[in-house]
């Protein structure tokens, strides 16, 4: 039944991406929304290539983010460097398995899910496949919703760095891994913002 519903494209209409106003598609270059003055586009501009570029950049930073330690704990000459994963394991062992699951989800599952989901969305909309459109639309909204929770570990390191300042007794320092991780999260957020979910529903003829 949903196949019969008209799309803005077919009716010569454009919904303003910023304020939602329904505008007539004049086909003119550089048209602006009469209400909020934002540029009107049928689809987000260069959605496919932008998303792909941002996603690849994010993935390249994601490797050092996981391999390099994100935090150093030094106490009385004893130095302990933690990566994201070893931080999760430590939390599990030291008595908070439930919190370890939350951190594991935010820092490892969510970024991986974003890479896989956006990769899948890009590939499938490039091929204009009708396969599981509704599910793919939902997957995109899930990625949008949970994406920014990955910043969790970055904030944990920032707080511990500010709090654990006991000189030689105990000291926490941030290590480069946390910078790479923060940038990964930001880039994946930009990637999911530049993907246009309308592409999921577009046929082969309306690529880009």
């Amino acid at each position, binding site marked *: *039944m*949903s196949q019969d*519903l*008209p*799309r*803005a494209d077919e*009716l010569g*209409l*454009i*919904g303003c*991406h*910023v*304020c*939602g106003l*329904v505008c*007539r598609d004049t086909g003119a270059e550089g048209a602006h929304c009469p*209400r*909020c*003055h*934002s540029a009107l586009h049928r689809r987000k501009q260069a959605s496919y290539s932008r998303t792909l570029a941002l996603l690849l950049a994010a993935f390249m930073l994601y490797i050092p983010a996981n391999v390099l330690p994100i935090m150093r704990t030094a106490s009385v000459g004893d130095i302990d460097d933690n990566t994201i994963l070893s931080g999760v394991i430590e*939390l599990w062992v*030291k*008595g*908070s398995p439930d*919190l370890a699951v*939350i951190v594991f989800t*935010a820092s490892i599952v969510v970024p991986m899910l974003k890479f896989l989901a956006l990769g899948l969305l890009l590939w499938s909309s490039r091929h204009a496949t009708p396969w599981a*459109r*509704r599910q793919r*639309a939902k997957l995109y*909204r899930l990625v*949008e919703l949970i994406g920014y*929770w990955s*910043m*969790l*570990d*970055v*904030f*944990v390191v*920032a*707080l*511990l*760095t*500010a*709090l*654990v*300042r*006991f000189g030689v*007794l*105990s000291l926490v*320092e*941030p290590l480069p891994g*946390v*910078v790479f991780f*923060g940038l990964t999260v930001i880039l994946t*957020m930009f990637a999911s*913002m530049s993907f246009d*979910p*309308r592409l999921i*529903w577009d046929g082969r003829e309306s690529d880009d």
Partner: protein
Amino acid sequence: MADSQPLLICEHCDTVYRRRELCCGEIARCLRCDAILERHHRLGVGAMFALVVTAMLVFVQANVWPIVTLGLSGQMISTTLWGAIVMMWREHSQIVSMLAAATLFFFPLGKMLLLGWVLFFAQQGRRAPGFRLAMVALYRLGPWTMSEVFVLGALVAIVKARVYFEVILNPGIFAYAALTLLITVFASIDLRRLWELVPERSA
């Protein structure tokens, strides 16, 4: 097809609908992609304004008071959000420091001030000066405020620190918890309807 006909376009799949007034508690969903098209809003402009003012007061509290204090052999150290931001800057993680300052301080503050500005005038049935720019800025700020993530981060930091240190919770953490609740209420408000709630004066 007349331009006056109220239409609605699903921003997720581009499907066009005729608009209908929603009853209390109703949510309109897209038949094609199941995204939420519109919700019925219980909150009027006045209530939204009151919420923003409350959020601002809580935000000030959350930033003024320390969040937690750690103790080790008689030595006590506490921090505020800005303490953490400054410390990250000094510890050669300037990028992280800027990310935190933007997503936890400047963007949330900007969002509240813009919304407060727009709603203050909307209450009097007027469009605020710079209404259009404020609305576009609010749209752009969209997902870049992360106070609720920070609260969970503080919780994780507390649990990690508890193994080695004495941990004392300070008012800041409770203010942050309250702020998270207020943000959840805001999350369900579609700011776009303000375009229609405060129509342009034919001046």
